[in-house]
C-alpha cells in the first residue's frame, strides 16, 4: 500500500488541502468542511496502512530521498515504526477533532481560515515526524508552531490575544534556541542528516559542543513540550484556544513537536547519556508535581485540564528518562493514551461550553441529566486520566511505575504513585462539581450537543475504553513494541538507514 515514494504524501495531502481551502473556502460555503474531512481521512488511512506495511518491511524502515539527491546531500524522509506510531496518534486525533469542529466552529466567523490553519498545523506535525533531516524538522516545526499561534488567537478576544502573544513569543524563543543548537551541531559535525550526524558524533566522541547543543535542544523542544521551567505559556494558551484546538494542542502538538523530537534526538542521534537521563527525570518529576498541584487549584475547567497536561507530560518524560525498553513502551503507550483522553476531555469541555456557555466549574453541576453523552465520555476520560482500571490510562501508568521499580528508581516510582493520587483528586473535582449532583435552575434548558460533536466524543470514549487492548500479546509487538524498539535500539547510523 505504502511504498517509499508515497512518504511525502503525509505532508503533501494536508498541505494541498490547506491551499485548496484557502482558494475555495472563501467562495464556496461548505467546501472547507469537505476538503478538511477528506484530507484528514486520507492521511489517517495512509498512517494506518503505514503501520501494516512496516510489518512486512525488513529492517522496519522505509526511506525516500527527495529530488533523488541521496542522503546526506539531499533531504531524506524516514518512515520507521516510531514515526508511524506518531502518525497514527496525530492523525487519529486530528480526524476526530475535525469531525467535532464541523459543528463546533459554526460559532466562529470565517470557518475556512480555521480549516486552512488546522490543515497547515497537521501538515507541519506530519512533516516533523516523517523527516530524517534536522533542519527540515525545524522548518516544519515552525509551520506547525505558527499555525498554532494563529489558532490560539482565533477567537480574537482579549484573553485569546494575550495568550497567543505570550505563546508566540516563548515559542519563537524556543525555535531560535533549536536553530542555534542546529548551528552548533552543524559546525561540529558538518552534516544535517540525523543518521549521518549520529554516525559522525560517534566518531568524534563526547565534547562540550554536544552537551551545549543537547542543552539547547532540551530547552527549545522542552519549551514546545511545556516541560516545567518552560511551561508558563501552556496554561494560558491551551484554555484560550477554541476547544478543538485545545484538544489538538494538548493532545498531539506538544507531543509531536516536543516529545517526539526530544526522543528522536536523544535516543537516535546523541545516544542517551546517563547525565541527560537523570536531568530529564528530575524535570519530569517536577513537571508532574507542579502540574498536578496547580490543577487542583483551578476552577476553570479548561485551565485545570491544561495544568493536567503538564503533569501528564511529566509522566511521559519520566518513562523516557528511565530509558529501559519497558519504560519506553510505557511512555509511548501513555503518550497515545494521553492524546486520546486529554483531547476527549478538552472536547467535552468544549461541548459543555457549547451547551451552557460557561467553563467555570462552580457554575455547573448536575449536567449528567441533561448532557448524557458529554458527561458519560467525561467520566470515562477522567477515569482514564486518574488511572482507574480497566481504562487505558491505568495500564500505561502501571507500566511506567513498574519500569521505575525494575530499574531501581524507587523514589520516582513512589513519586508517580503519589502524583496519581493527586490526579484522582483533581479529576474528581471535575466530575463532582461539573456533572454529578443536582442541576442548577438556569441550566435546565440546555440540550445535548449536535450529532457531529457526539460522534467524535463517543469514538474517543470507545478508544479510551478499549485502549488497553493494545497491550495484548500479538497487538503489542506490532504497534507499541516496534515503536519503542526503535528508541531502545539506540543510535541509528546512516549506513543502517540507507543500506
Amino acid at each position, binding site marked *: 500500500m505504502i511504498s517509499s515514494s508515497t512518504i511525502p504524501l503525509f505532508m503533501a495531502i494536508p498541505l494541498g488541502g490547506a491551499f485548496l481551502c484557502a482558494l475555495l473556502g472563501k467562495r464556496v460555503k461548505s467546501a472547507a468542511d469537505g476538503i478538511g474531512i477528506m484530507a484528514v481521512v486520507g492521511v489517517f488511512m495512509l498512517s494506518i496502512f503505514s503501520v501494516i506495511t512496516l510489518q512486512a518491511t525488513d529492517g522496519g524502515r522505509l526511506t525516500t530521498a527527495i529530488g533523488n539527491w541521496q542522503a546526506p546531500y539531499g533531504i531524506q524522509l524516514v518512515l520507521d515504526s516510531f514515526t508511524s506510531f506518531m502518525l497514527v496518534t496525530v492523525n487519529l486525533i486530528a480526524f476526530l477533532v475535525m469531525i467535532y469542529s464541523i459543528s463546533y466552529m459554526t460559532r466562529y466567523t470565517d470557518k475556512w481560515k480555521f480549516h486552512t490553519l488546522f490543515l497547515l498545523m497537521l501538515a507541519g506535525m506530519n512533516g516533523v515526524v516523517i523527516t530524517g533531516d534536522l*533542519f527540515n524538522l525545524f*522548518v516544519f516545526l*515552525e509551520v506547525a508552531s*505558527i499555525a498554532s*499561534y*494563529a489558532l490560539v*488567537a482565533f477567537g*480574537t*478576544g*482579549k*484573553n485569546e*490575544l*494575550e495568550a*497567543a*502573544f505570550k505563546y*508566540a*513569543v516563548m515559542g*519563537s*524563543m524556543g*525555535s*531560535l534556541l533549536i*536553530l*542555534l543548537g*542546529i*548551528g552548533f551541531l*552543524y*559546525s561540529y559535525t558538518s552534516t*544535517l542528516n540525523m543518521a549521518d550526524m549520529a554516525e559522525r558524533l560517534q566518531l568524534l566522541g563526547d565534547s562540550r559542543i554536544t552537551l551545549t547543543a543537547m542543552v539547547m535542544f532540551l530547552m527549545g523542544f522542552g519549551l514546545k513540550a511545556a516541560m516545567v521551567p518552560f511551561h508558563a505559556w501552556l496554561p494560558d494558551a491551551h484554555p484560550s484556544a477554541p476547544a478543538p484546538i485545545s484538544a489538538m494542542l494538548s493532545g498531539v502538538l506538544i507531543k509531536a513537536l516536543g516529545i517526539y523530537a526530544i526522543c528522536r534526538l536523544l535516543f537516535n542521534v546523541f545516544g542517551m547519556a546517563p547525565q541527560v537521563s537523570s536531568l530529564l527525570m528530575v524535570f519530569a518529576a517536577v513537571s508532574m508535581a507542579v502540574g498536578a498541584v496547580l490543577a487542583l487549584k483551578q476552577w476553570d475547567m479548561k485551565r485545570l485540564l491544561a495544568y493536567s497536561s503538564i503533569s501528564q507530560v511529566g509522566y511521559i518524560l519520566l518513562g523516557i528518562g528511565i530509558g529501559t525498553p519497558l519504560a519506553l513502551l510505557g511512555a509511548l503507550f501513555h503518550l497515545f493514551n494521553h492524546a486520546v483522553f486529554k483531547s476527549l476531555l478538552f472536547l467535552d469541555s468544549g461541548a459543555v461550553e457549547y451547551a451552557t456557555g460557561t467553563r467555570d466549574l462552580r457554575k455547573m453541576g448536575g449536567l449528567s441529566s441533561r448532557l448524557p453523552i458529554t458527561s458519560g465520555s467525561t467520566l470515562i476520560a477522567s477515569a482514564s486520566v486518574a488511572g482507574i482500571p480497566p481504562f487505558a490510562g491505568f495500564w500505561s501508568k502501571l507500566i511506567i511505575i513498574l519500569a521505575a521499580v525494575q530499574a531501581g528508581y524507587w523514589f520516582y516510582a513512589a513519586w508517580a504513585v503519589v502524583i496519581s493520587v493527586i490526579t484522582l483528586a483533581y479529576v474528581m473535582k471535575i466530575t463532582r462539581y461539573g456533572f454529578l449532583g443536582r442541576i442548577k435552575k438556569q441550566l435546565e434548558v440546555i440540550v445535548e450537543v449536535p450529532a457531529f460533536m457526539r460522534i467524535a466524543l463517543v469514538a474517543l470514549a470507545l478508544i479510551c475504553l478499549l485502549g488497553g487492548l493494545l497491550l495484548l500479546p500479538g497487538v503489542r509487538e506490532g504497534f507499541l513494541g516496534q515503536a519503542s524498539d526503535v528508541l531502545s535500539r539506540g543510535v541509528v547510523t546512516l549506513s543502517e538507514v540507507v543500506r
Partner: protein
Amino acid sequence: MNAYLPYVMCIVLFCLGVYAVLAKRNIIKILIGLCIAEYAVNLFLILVAYRVGGRSPIFSSTDVILPDVMVDPLPQALVLTAIVIGLATTAFLVAIAMRLHDRFGTYDITKIRELRG
C-alpha cells in the same frame, strides 16, 4: 581566543535579545529583542560557514573559481530559509501586537495582564 571572538560577539548579541524579551514590559521592545536574537542566530550560521580567504559560492563566467576555495554554501541556504521564517514570525507577532493595542489601548504587557483580569 581570537579564533573564536566573532562567535562570542554573536552570542553576546543573542543574549541581549533574550534579555530584552525577558526583561522588557513594552510589547514592541519584546519584538525588538526577538529580532535581535534572530539576527544573532543567522549571523552564527554564516560565521560557521566562513572560510578564510574564501570566495562567494557563485561561479563566474569571466573568472575561474575552483569549488574548493568557496565558503560553505549550505549554511547560507539555511539562513535564507531562516530569514524568511523570521520575517513571517515577526509579521505575525506585529499583527497580534496591534490587535492587543486595539483591545487594551496600551503596549505595556503588565498593564495588559492586569486589564485581562
